[in-house]
């Protein structure tokens, strides 16, 4: 059953959804209707965090959100974490720290960690572990991911300090 057209506000742009079905998840609409496949599907029941996106300031598993219910919210996906041609601090840190292997969990983790650092500019290890315990990674054992978080946090603190000095 199709629903009336609605608009999703994603990464700063409006995306109309036409001929959508009412039971489609935000993850499905992102991936299959709007050609934003960066968010991944590994469990479709909110256990793995591969589909993590930001709804306003809230971190959600997009597989558990009905797409139409996200109309009117500010949606940030991995594709919108940095401007075109640039890398966000967390993205650069993942590369530098060796936190990327197969890369399937990476988009969800990056969105979650980017949000974490907003509230915790200098997070303790246990805080990070708890914050990302909803994001499964099967390759890394999390060691390099935790290292990447510290790198990204230091970079972000550094850039903010510079901003104040300027």
């Amino acid at each position: 059953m199709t629903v009336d057209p609605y608009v999703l506000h994603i990464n700063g742009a409006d995306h109309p959804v036409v001929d959508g079905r009412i039971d489609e998840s935000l993850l499905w609409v992102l991936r299959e209707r709007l050609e934003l496949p960066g968010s991944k599907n590994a469990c479709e029941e909110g256990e793995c965090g591969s589909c993590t996106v930001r709804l306003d300031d809230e971190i959600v598993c997009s597989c558990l959100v009905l797409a139409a219910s996200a109309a009117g919210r500010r949606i940030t996906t991995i594709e919108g974490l940095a401007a075109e041609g640039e890398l966000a601090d967390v993205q650069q840190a993942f590369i530098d720290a060796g936190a990327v292997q197969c890369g399937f969990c990476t988009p969800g983790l990056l969105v979650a960690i980017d949000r974490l650092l907003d509230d915790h500019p200098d997070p303790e290890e246990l805080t990070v572990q708890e914050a990302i315990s909803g994001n499964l990674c099967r390759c890394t054992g999390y060691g390099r991911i935790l290292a990447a978080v510290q790198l990204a946090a230091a970079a972000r603190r550094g850039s903010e300090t510079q901003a104040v000095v300027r």
Partner: protein
Amino acid sequence: MSVVTTPQRIDRTGRVGENAPRPDGIPKVTGDFAFSGDFRHAGMLWGGTLRSPHPSARVLSVDVSRALAMTGVHAALTWEDVPGSLHYGLEHPDQPVLADGVVRYQGEPVAVVAADHPDTVRRALDAIVVDYRELQPLIDPELAEEAPPIHPDGNLIRRIQLRHGPQEAVGDVAVEGTYEVGMQDQAPLGTESGLAVPDDRGGVDLYVSTQDLHADRDQVAACLGLEPEAVRLTLAGVGGAFGAREDISLHVHLCLLALRTGRPVKMSYSRTESFHGHVHRHPARMWYRHHARADGTLVRVEARLLFDGGAYASTSSAVLANATCFAVGPYRVDSAQIEGVAVRTNNPPCGAMRGFGCVQVCFAHEAQMDRLADALGMDPVELRLANALEPGDRIITGQRITGTAPVAEVIRSCADHPSAAARSDNPMSRPGGAGRTADVEHVVRGEALAVGFKNLMFSEGFDDYSTAACRLADGVATITSACAEVGQGFVTLAHQIAHEVLGVDEVVLAPVSTATIASAGSTSASRQTWMSGGAVQAACEAVRARLLDRVAAAHGVPVDDLVLVDGRVAALSGAFEMDLAEATAQPVEAEEVYRHAPTVALDDDGQGDAHVSFAFSAHRAIVDVDVDLGLVKVVELTTSQDVGRVLNPLQVIGQLEGGAAQGIGLAVLEELQVAEGRILNPSFTDYLLPTALDMPPVEIAALIEQPEPGAPFGAKGVGEPPTISSTAAVAAAVRRATGLDLPRVPIRPADIAFRGGTGQRPTGEDPS
């Protein structure tokens, strides 16, 4: 949010031994990297699979007419629509593409459908009527050999009777134990997915995640009844593998649907379907008896190993060979009798998973070594050191170790490494997490060490090779190899090797496809660094030699006078120097095939030089256990590993940490629970993978660098050892903490709670 500006391609690769960045790193962090489930195609249909709900049944009829009549359904196929071979298999073609009259495990594919939307696919699958006559499933592997055959090939997949040395040897002390390992799943985060696109000549292109494109291609082509050249496989982004992608899954189904409908077809398994759609690590039952002299010298080991292969053979016979050959661990013992048996049952099919047969026996032989140490009153580390294999020793297949074997070094460095584990007051760090531990005062700590080893590359006479091509043009090296990058970082090493040999900064990896180059073999058995690394090195060296010959001839200088370094061709005499881009304005190309030293089959006594090389590792685990609730917190894991040579330190660390996580999972968390042939927990809600909170810090005590003779750059594969000894170490530490025997992994809360764990060391008496 702060932003770092970074170019979109790697312009700085590293030399061998450096932390070169991954060439696929940027697309993987921006979301641009195309995994196999991310492909779309104009006019694309969706595919789906109808699976048997029964572990054993006759299929009396399959009626797809109602599905075919539905709007939006374009095809509904059964075994009668398979034009070529009805069966496939990596080692033995014994598995039906679609059930032909019998289903032998729950989840076996019966029919496939293509339709315009996944919802239509689901409804069409529901509309297919299958008339099953249920049979009593064969679920106990102990009964398999006597039971009526569940498959025309019989219920015995393989038996190996290994006999080594004098069979009557006895020592002063004997310890005996029976051990069990549950069924672990590889659980790569990316589920099986792919896209098949028919061409206009009756052939098909398949974009799929896999560990071995060419082995897949050959099986798919045989089932489609097509020449191999008419079936082209291209590697799509692989969301992890760990053995789950050695066998084909949806490959033939997708191609059948695409060829029937004349349209591109995409399929993507759900997590539940994925648990049913690939093989698992073999559950094993293992009986052992170790004989030793009073001074700790191992005299003889007897063992019987029973591996449940499930319904189809997959790689069971190679897994069993590993379990049998490495049954005693990395120890010198002159007398052994090991009976390895792999059987067929109506349980889920089992096959490859990281560690490949060595994980199960390591758990058992290390438990035996601890039991022996207790019986002898010896320190368990000293007992291991006293028996540690050395170069020149023979393993129980009679094969002499001609390469490196730093067993004592990995044990000693791991055991001596200072522990950083303190007792944390944070409730989050307790067993079970915040608020779960019953009584903090009852939490006990245990520490133990385990050692393991494994073969690298394929064994038993397999013609194991890898092909690579290099093209150097305008100063840019293009490498072509069909090696499947599954996350391990071969793409980085290929860059590093090309850079090392050719002195070029700019390296491009061509798309990975069966259409452009011959096989690189499987991304498994810790073999690609050695095999495809060796092929890339050989291809680059051939290009280098051809280029220098050409330049030498053109300039009338001896070739020995020329060097290729830092993007320049230079004469040592100083006669001339030219830019590499200029020197390769006319391209230079080479394709090379790399083979490792040949191996032979095992003889009737399980003897022979069946393996190429061996890699060793040790883990020391420290655990906290809540004995009231049976909860375990792994506090720290320390490891040393025999790596030959480190080619990329960060990637090695990534393998050691990631492999250890899978080992911890098997020790205390992960088990596919199977009852009456049915999987009870096929979801991430119920199959528990280690999270960031479950993982302790992994301390790397030592990477033992003793270059392996014959290995490109001296490097051994590093992927599997971390998964082998970690499980055994964690289980042993829980034993030390609780005083319980704990002969089974994963250790479940009920194995500890209410079992009277005392926190005392085990006494080492024989189990009754």
